[in-house]
């Protein structure tokens, strides 16, 4: 479970509020969508949750751990996948898993066992021992998925994880997210693609200029008219703000 309480982030002393009093709650076994345009504050929110950035005010509980109190323990609860796969060109996928497993303090034999399992499940065995620099973007993103799942964390943060992927790779990511929900994990998933959010997410928060302007199930957000397209819902919500 992730509980975000009045989280704010200001860059620079007099800079803009990139995240402005954001609160929401994402439950275990639930895919929570953060929907917003580019620059709306999605990435900053997720970086705050991952303790990569320090909040200006507010806090969040990640699986019950306050990120202000024990950021290191918070990171132990997390798997993180971003739009950029973020792989080292000169390491193989298997070596990536070993590196991140060791950073999480997993014992070597367990890393080997879990890696083998994930590499099989994500259909990566063929390129598991090739240098990552030679891999396609989709393959690299699979490395990122395996890396996030390796420690079996209760919470997954996914920031536009399908950006720049082809159809098959996108499907692999979506299946992965579905499996995470089935496994009882809390998935926070950010996207600006309406159809994807509509298809995957149990609940959605619409974020605009750093603030959450609406949240609920997709159907609740559509409540005005059930025939309304989700895109129009978003346009209406954002339009009401400006």
């Amino acid at each position, binding site marked *: 479970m992730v509980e975000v309480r009045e989280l704010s982030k200001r860059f620079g002393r007099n800079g803009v509020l990139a995240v402005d009093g954001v609160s929401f709650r994402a439950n275990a076994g639930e895919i929570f969508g953060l929907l917003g345009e580019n620059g709306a504050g999605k990435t900053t929110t997720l970086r705050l949750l991952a303790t*990569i950035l320090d909040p200006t005010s507010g806090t969040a509980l990640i699986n019950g751990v306050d990120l202000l109190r024990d950021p290191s323990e918070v990171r132990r609860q997390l798997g993180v996948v971003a739009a950029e796969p973020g792989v080292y060109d000169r390491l193989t996928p298997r070596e990536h898993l070993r590196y*991140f497993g060791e950073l999480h303090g997993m014992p070597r034999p367990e890393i080997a066992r879990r890696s083998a399992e994930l590499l099989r499940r994500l259909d990566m065995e063929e390129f598991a021992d090739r240098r990552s620099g030679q891999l396609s973007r989709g393959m690299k993103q699979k490395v990122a998925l395996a890396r996030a799942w390796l420690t079996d964390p209760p919470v997954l943060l996914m920031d536009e994880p399908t950006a720049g992927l082809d159809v098959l790779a996108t499907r692999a990511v979506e299946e992965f997210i579905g499996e995470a929900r089935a496994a009882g994990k809390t998935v926070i998933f950010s996207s600006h693609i309406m159809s994807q959010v509509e298809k995957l997410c149990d609940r959605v928060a619409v974020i605009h200029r750093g603030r959450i302007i609406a949240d609920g199930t997709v159907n609740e957000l559509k409540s005005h008219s059930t025939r309304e397209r989700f895109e129009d819902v978003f346009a209406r919500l954002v339009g009401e703000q400006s």
Partner: protein
Amino acid sequence: MRGRRDFQWRHVGVVFRKELIDTTRDRRTWLAMIIIPLLLVPLLLLAMPTIMVQHMERVEETPVAVAVVGAEHYPDLVAFLDGLDGVNAVQLEDPVAGLAERAVHAILYLPEGMAAAVAGEVPAQLRLAFDASDEFSTAARDRLAAALGEFASRVVAGRLAARGLDPAILNPLPWSVENLAPPQRMVGFALGMIMPMLLAIWASTGGMYAAIDGAAGEKERGTLEPLLSTPASRTAIVIGKYLAVVLTSVLASAVSLLGMVLTFLVRPAALLGPGADLQVGLAEILPAPAAGVILLVVLGLAGMFSALQLAISLYARSFREAQTYLSPLSFVVIFPAIFTQFLPVEHVPEWFFFVPVLGSLAVLKEALVGIIDLEHIAMTLAVSAVGIRFALAFAVACFRKERVLFRT
């Protein structure tokens, strides 16, 4: 609040090992860390002097062609010159053009009535023209000057003999020269000229690619975010990376030292000049205490620069930007190195040892000449330790600064 409490040496080890694997798979690091440092000294000491000697031999072996103007004024001299090995006296219509076209190497002008002047024991004024922009012509000038001197000596000897005098009276103080410096001192002197600079340069730049890759490279590839999302504290991540960069730098220095020692073992004459035919063992080239001092000083330099390089390349947005920022850093070493290169060890001012880099260079120089001055060593290492302390704190601070990490 963040970091210190979560710091674990285990994380340092994990990051360190990964950085080393990553670095050893990078061709650039191999080139910058092993191949260039290893080959530079042998090339400098073996190939360059050989090429120069060969060139000089070629110049010396080329026969000198001299155009004699007014040869008829004193045929004896012309015959003498022409009779010398490797000298050809020729007659040219336009000797100046001949010199310009390099058909001849020099022009010798004999004055009118020269034969009579020599016979009458009156000075005869000769003129030798050459082209200073041409190496061969300059060599010809020296050859001809020596030949003319020899001819003059013969004339003088004849005059003295005619008066019943011994030519030896003209040289009342015959003297000879002897070099009493032991070969080891010569070795040290020659080493002290170039090795401090090279050791310092590799110590400060040998790990540059590892530093850029570990900071700007992580940013550019988007690997920094996943790395920072692991339980490892930022301090542990920086220190792991830092140790890998230090190791790379020290290795580059060690390899360059190895190149030097090998050169010396194979051809001692490479440093001492031709003719210095002595056999030296490893113990004479690099005695154990000197090697120890060199290692410590190199560690100090590498320690300071590795941290600075990490911090600066973390500030950069990309690999190339980091390279641009880091290149000037090597001048911090090169300028003092050139400055101290020709400074005799005995005349190094005390204050040098209180200045980072400068003190390191001076102590390296001392060690290579065979001077182990504990006070200087201690001072320099203390200065380096303070430098490392601040540079590392700066690097850690950069890894915690959001403005540096997410600079766009």
